[in-house]
């Protein structure tokens, strides 16, 4: 069975950044039909503007990093790019911002598709970022694992037995090996050996 992506946006909020009132009106009225509270802005975005906003729809023709209050490429909500001129430079800027979906201004009737794709891409991007952060944390914890194995070896046994003990602690505590290592290192030696 096909997985159905998020496709109901009723009750969500959107910001539409564009220089043209006509373009803003076209997007805002279509959003309204999908149950989305959308409002247009003809200026740079501030952090305060993002209050209650679940997606941002931005003009690629005139967009620039300073117009968006986040680190380029790290929008905190799904980002839809409105395509006007199709110049490679402008599209390059949009790609640098990790725009989640593109919507040609000449095809606003496909807004729904752009929103579905943007939300799915954003969710996938967020998962990827989270996985990367976890991997990074695990890498940073490798030294702690070595230290913990050494500490446990000091209580008897070889490195294989020490690593086995550490794995058991991680399993029992339902934490990662790295977190178990940090716990071992944070505990006084007496506790590790099972003393009360």
């Amino acid at each position, binding site marked *: 069975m096909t997985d159905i992506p998020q496709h*109901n946006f009723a009750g969500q909020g959107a910001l539409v950044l564009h220089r043209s009132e006509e373009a803003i009106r076209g997007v805002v009225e279509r959003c309204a039909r999908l149950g989305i509270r959308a409002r247009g802005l003809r200026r740079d975005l501030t952090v305060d503007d993002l209050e209650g906003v679940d997606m941002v729809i931005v003009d690629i023709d005139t967009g620039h990093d300073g117009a968006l209050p986040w680190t380029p490429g790290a929008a905190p909500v799904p980002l839809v790019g409105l395509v006007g001129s199709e110049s490679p430079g402008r599209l390059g800027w949009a790609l640098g911002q990790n725009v989640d979906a593109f919507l040609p201004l000449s095809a606003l009737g496909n807004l*729904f598709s752009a929103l579905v794709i943007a939300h799915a891409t954003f969710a996938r991007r967020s998962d990827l970022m989270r996985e990367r952060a976890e991997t990074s944390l695990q890498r940073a914890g490798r030294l702690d694992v070595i230290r913990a194995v050494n500490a446990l070896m000091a209580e008897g046994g070889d490195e294989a037995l020490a690593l086995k003990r550490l794995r058991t602690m991680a399993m029992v505590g339902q934490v990662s090996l790295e977190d178990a290592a940090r716990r071992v290192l944070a505990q006084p030696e007496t506790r590790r050996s099972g003393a009360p």
Partner: protein
Amino acid sequence: MAYKLGLIFSTTGSYAALGQSALAGALGAIAQISGRGGIDIVPVIRDPGGDPAVYEAQMAELLDMGVSNVVGAITSWSRKDMIPVLERKGGLLWYPCPYEGFECNDHVVYLGAAPNHHVVPAIDWLATQGMSRAYLVGSNYVWGWETLRLARDRLQAHGIEVVAERFVPLGSTKHEHVVDEICATSPDCVINSLIGPSSVSFVKDLGARDPARRGRPGHLVSFNQTEADLADLGEAADGLLSVGSFFAEDASATLRAVARDRAPNGQVSAFLASAHAAVELFAAAASEAGTDAPHAVFQAACAAPRATVLGDIRIDPVMRHAALAPRLALAEGGRFRIIERAAAPVPADPYLSSQPAPRAPRRPALRIVP
């Protein structure tokens, strides 16, 4: 001033009955408008014969010969095939059939029932009948896929179990395995999104295998069954619940006369009435705009509610869909008897973005017909 109006309906081929009904409605409207001194409309008729590959070429041919507006297409497949050529050549399609929603093209006016006009009220009605198990079967293309997906969501929201969901190749009549499974699982109702010969053959076979089903209200459910081919189903259709924007019971004498004079089966159907209404809308809009240029005609059509055989129709200028008053009807002896109808036209919600979650009992916009 005479305006050309393209009419692309398959009046031959596997779903000819629907095309014939729609064409009869459109031609009847053209004659009536001309007869009462309205604008002259010159119909330019094409018959793709039910072959999806032909629609695009015929649409291109009409647009190239100066036809800007076309009433036509029955299936979503054919509509979607014609859209690129409409976009390239700047035409406007007045689409008079129920469809599965999730579309809003700048070159189409959607005059048939959207999913909030068919799937939602039909499933909500089933929930009020104490049904607890449903079986879903559809043709293996976009109408079957999407209507059954929407039906499944709505059924499950009501707590109705979906026993199984099966798809049959488009046009196939090999569905013994489906009938076997239905007989083995005994669901309270079967949601039938098969089309054309597949549907006719399936309904008859199921009725023959399990005659006890017949006459039980809602044992079969269709989101697009009309009088255009109801007779083909025979007695097996008794108790079939259909939902749509129009049934013959509501037809005026004028519309009945159109059906009698022009429809091969003499019956009014939603296809006939909607195609009639499409021509009325085009005529009123072109007359007011003073042109048949698609953009101007569409703007004029949306400017105010327009009187049609379906009642006053308002078209949403943004989503391009008509507000319609859905009716629920049960088939009895080859006719549909309306059991519920919306009190007023309901704006189309093609993306189902504003449908409240079901609450039992819920029949919000419908009232009992005495």
